[in-house]
């Protein structure tokens, strides 16, 4: 009798240990399997998708059921907005192993998604959860958003970039310890800075910096090489890298003008003005003005 009881106890203990393990193991495996239910578009492009179940979120597969579809578009304020996520680009990104909800932290776990939250800003700011140092650094710069602003000031604040605006989203590349990532970033000056600072982008066209940069010169400086990045400041701020008081050290950094401290004050005062100033100087040159008027006059004669 005692023997039978002992066998029964061992069996019961084994069952208690194994069954939940098998059950949970099965659950974790099934969570990464693509669901068999697919999202189907409802009759109106602005209406919610005909989908109503709890989405699996422990892998990307669940989200990609819908967002892997290139046709996933919605009409918003008269514009067709795509919600397609390029799975291949995502898989190649530095965040390939990060789950969707790692950045989309306000995701409601249900479909249709709640369209009222500012999910884009949330996603673009989610970087701070892992990259705290960079986020704190950004808080020191001119791109820091003031949450206390109201009215027109609040609108202006809302235009300031968040992490994702500069670094991109699903296809974000590795920068640290990655020459290829740095090279890819280096080429992206217009997307990162120029599209907001169009005037500075346009007048960044001196011979050996701006014009060369825009023509793809690898050794020509991108905006941030001089102006800094996360804690970027106005040039009027004495802490700015491009403030007059710091130009010598900024221009003498690395392989630029680091010839034994030859980036002297005199050189900097003259050369730095040319970097964003050549266009204005050219526009004011009397001969340029003269010939421009002549060519304009000829153009008018021929009706151009």
């Amino acid at each position: 009798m005692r023997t039978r009881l002992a066998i029964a106890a061992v069996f019961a203990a084994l069952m208690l240990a194994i069954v939940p393990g098998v059950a949970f193991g099965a659950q974790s495996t099934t969570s990464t399997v693509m669901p068999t239910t697919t999202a189907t578009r409802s009759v109106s492009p602005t209406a919610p998708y005909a989908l109503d179940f709890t989405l699996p979120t422990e892998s990307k597969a669940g989200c990609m059921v819908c967002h892997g579809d290139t046709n996933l578009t919605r009409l918003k304020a008269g514009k067709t907005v795509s919600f397609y996520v390029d799975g291949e680009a995502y898989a190649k990104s530095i965040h390939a192993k990060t789950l969707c909800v790692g950045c989309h932290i306000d995701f409601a776990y249900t479909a249709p998604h709640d369209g009222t939250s500012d999910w884009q800003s949330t996603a673009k700011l989610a970087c701070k959860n892992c990259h705290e140092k960079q986020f704190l650094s950004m808080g020191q710069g001119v791109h820091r958003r003031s949450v206390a602003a109201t009215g027109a000031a609040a609108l202006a604040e809302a235009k300031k970039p968040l992490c994702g605006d500069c670094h991109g989203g699903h296809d974000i590349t590795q920068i640290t310890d990655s020459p290829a990532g740095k090279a890819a970033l280096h080429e992206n000056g217009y997307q990162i800075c120029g599209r907001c600072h169009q005037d500075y982008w346009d007048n960044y066209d001196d011979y050996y910096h701006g014009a060369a940069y825009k023509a793809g010169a690898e050794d020509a400086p991108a905006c941030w090489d001089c102006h800094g990045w996360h804690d970027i400041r106005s040039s009027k701020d004495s802490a700015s890298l491009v403030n007059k008081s710091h130009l010598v050290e900024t221009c003498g950094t690395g392989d630029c003008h680091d010839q034994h401290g030859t980036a002297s004050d005199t050189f900097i005062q003259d050369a730095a003005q040319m970097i964003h100033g050549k266009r204005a100087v050219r526009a004011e040159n009397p001969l340029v003005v003269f010939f421009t008027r002549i060519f304009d006059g000829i153009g008018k004669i021929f009706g151009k």
Partner: protein
Amino acid sequence: MTAILLAEVNVWLDVIFVVLEILVFCVFFIVHLGVSIPTGRFKKQWIDKQWPKHDWAPPALPKFIHFQHLTMMLLLGLSGMYIRFPFFEGGRTPMRYVHYVAMVIVGLNFFWRLWYAFFSKERDWKEFAVGKKDLATLLGVAAYYTYFSNNKPHVAKYNVMQKLAYDLFGVLMIVQGFTGLALLTQPFLFGTSPREILVGWWLGPLVGGTAMAGAWVRIVHYSVNWLFIIVTTVHIYLAAGIDLPCTLDFFGIKKLEVDPNAYHHDHDDDHADAPAHAPAVAEAD
């Protein structure tokens, strides 16, 4: 010194040299060529085919050297202009290499030519030397080219203006080589760069540092580049317009007819003072 001085100087140079090149082109290819019609020179040369005669044709080696020198100078001009005005995507590094390689070849050409002129068996430096006799003909040659006279004084293989132009090329090449090397900032000797060695120690203190000296040297380098372009424009016009057969021969298009008695009979053109012992005549400027 205003803070924007460098930008202003550079923009002025861009504009002035472009205008100057256009003016030079128009003066020679439109005005000078145009005036040659009423003066009869155009008909004599282009219709009656009365080109200057030669008692000597350049052999293959000088022609080859001239041709590859021309190619290298074109590459230097093109790549140099690209470095300043990048006119297509992604060419900075390749164009710099083109510039360096062409510079080395032109440098070798130059030293070879110096050796040829002063130390070879032919040592022809005297043909480029401008003496009192040459200077005495300067006004006469200038008058011929400006249509004030039909008489072009000759005292040697090259006339005085040709000699001055060729000598100017040599001087410009020395200046261009020096200023070009002075633009290099990579450590070269005991950790110092060519810029520091060539200009940093003497020009630097005068203009406000080595980097500033480099900026002014770049301005000189760019200006001399334009002088090459302008002088070459004139050279092309005169070579083709004054002595087309010699130019065609130089490029292997048509062999030059050699007349051993080129200087022993009268020219319609009244080449005065052409000595009987003159080695050859190269009319092209």
